[in-house]
């Protein structure tokens, strides 16, 4: 897994609460293999019109935000379906971090699994950053995982919350399967005990 340490990049504000994963990538694209052109599926139906032309009012279609690597969202980002493709399209477009007041649980886990940082910052601060990013299109945000701080366009610093275990895995780029297999003897001992106690499951 790609580690995440520190990132200074253009940030894109998304003025929508409860952005669901169907919005991030519509279901009809889920059968597609990840490959060249996959990034075009990101926010597809709100980003393109019926003829496939860009909707100029959508923030990602506005020049200063096109190279954004950080997304500043509203509450409950990534709610709904468990599709990890929602993370794949965000990453294939170039996003490495999402700052939001809260996340859908499954999507939050999916971001962490792919080396993407979901940073939880209170809505008041998110709203302030989104306003600044709208006022100054192309402005940058810095995210430092070690110190758990996000620095807004105006230099204001916000602390974000992240579980210590998730932080360590992101900083080192650790793979969860590897971390499980380190415990193989404990797992095997557990299984013996477990199935002896619950023979109907053996």
């Amino acid at each position: 897994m790609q580690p995440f340490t520190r990132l200074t990049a253009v940030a894109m504000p998304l003025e929508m609460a409860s952005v669901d994963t169907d919005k991030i990538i519509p279901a009809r694209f889920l059968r597609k293999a990840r490959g060249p052109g996959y990034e075009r599926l990101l926010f597809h139906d709100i980003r393109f019109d019926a003829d496939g032309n860009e909707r100029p009012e959508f923030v990602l279609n506005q020049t200063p935000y096109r190279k954004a690597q950080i997304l500043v969202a509203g509450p409950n980002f990534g709610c709904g379906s468990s599709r990890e493709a929602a993370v794949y399209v965000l990453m294939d477009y170039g996003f490495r971090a999402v700052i939001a007041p809260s996340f859908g649980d499954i999507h939050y886990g999916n971001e962490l699994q792919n080396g993407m940082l979901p940073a939880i910052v209170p809505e008041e601060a998110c709203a302030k950053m989104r306003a600044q990013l709208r006022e100054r299109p192309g402005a940058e945000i810095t995210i430092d995982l070690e110190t758990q701080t996000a620095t807004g366009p105006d230099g204001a610093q916000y602390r974000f919350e992240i579980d210590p275990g998730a932080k360590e895995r992101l900083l080192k780029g650790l793979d969860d399967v590897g971390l499980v297999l380190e415990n193989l003897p404990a797992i095997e001992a557990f299984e013996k005990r477990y199935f002896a106690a619950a023979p109907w499951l053996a």
Partner: protein
Amino acid sequence: MTGRTMFEKIWDPHVIVQRGNDALLFIDRNFVHEGSFHAFGALRKEGRRVRRPRQTFGVPDHYVPTAPSAAGGYVDAEAQGLVEFLAENAREFGFDHFGIGDGRQGIVHVIGPELGITQPGLTVTCGDSHTSTHGALGAFAFGIGASQLKQVLATQCLWQKRPKTLRITVDGALGAGVTAKDVVLAIIAKIGVAGGVGHVIEYAGSTFRAMSIEGRMTVCNMSIEAGARAGMVAPDDATFRYLAGREYAPKGPLWDAALAHWRTLPSDDGARFDREVALDAAAIEPMVTWGTNPEEAAPISGRVPDPASMTDAAKRSHAEQALAYIGLTPGTKLTDVKVDRVFIGSCTNSRIEDLRAAAQVAKGRKAVVPAFVSPGSQQIKRQAEAEGLDRVFREAGIEWRASACSMCAGMNGDLGRAGERVASTSNRNFEGRQGKGVRTHLVSPAMAVAAAVTGRLTDVRTLTER
């Protein structure tokens, strides 16, 4: 000593090791479907095997056509390829697979309980958010993404942070025409789509005790729509009667041993929950969504709300965007909203009881808009046909189709057309969920048929008895 919650009684014995806040959790049952191809792709790329194939179960549902044709009916070769790839993975890794043509095929969250694979006290995962459905049997069941699915396939374990607990108590008898779907929509309207984030919900109270297992599945299914990690109902005699004799349920002395354990699972008196919410069953009416997420729901007797009256800025802005998409103006009576199409099915509402409720309304009436039923499994389809429900639907002009996820997410090509308004028994009214530009109104099966026979959202209680 304070009592323990059912969740604690399931979680604790499944923890293998603890690493900081993360527990390494043993997974009893892992379900895969044809949409799980990213996980199998990664597993193969890393040269790993399925560690415990006997605890792994596969079934195609998302891309399965409901109107098979000579050509197979798949939306394209890619979709068919995914169904074939699942079968190939089942053969290579040696897990049970209920494929196309197997009489046990159906929607993964319908067949898990139906075959007795899901049982009380188990940890259950699947690469699908509606895995919460299985909690209706007293299991801890939750959806995971492709990377975590690969982890479960490779190790039968999963790193998980212990969620908080939320008890939702509903007491009292439900009114005529009010169903499990209305209960869960009322709950989500109350607590919001993020109301359960980070929590496992236990549904408690006399309303759930009196509810069938099918109804409990409908409620647990939509726990994810409140943002919850999982939903569960304590197992009771109804649960045990439901499970007895099912193909994968324990038999003989093993059944007795399992039953003795299952009876210990319900939360103790005095168990402490991190949060509590209560609703009065008698106050719940048939519900319908008016917006683009499941909390944007109201009793059918109500009107489309005015976003300007909403105090929460995020909710107000979401409601404004929702009304623009859904094409409704504040103050409109919900019963004045015309519908163009009706869908009865999905892991939320496709079980036999749902089909009976739908058929009861359809009997002797005619649909005035296109409508179809997709039973949740082949077994349910056969049972419904044995009861003559298929004939009732056909006579009402409602199509009777094969079993799949179908128009809930439309991945098999069952979609509405842009601009159409659909009354749907599924779980998500998100923008574009049932097709680009399609507007979804979530309702119960009886309410869906009521909409089909009148051509508008209709209070099923106002249809005269036949």
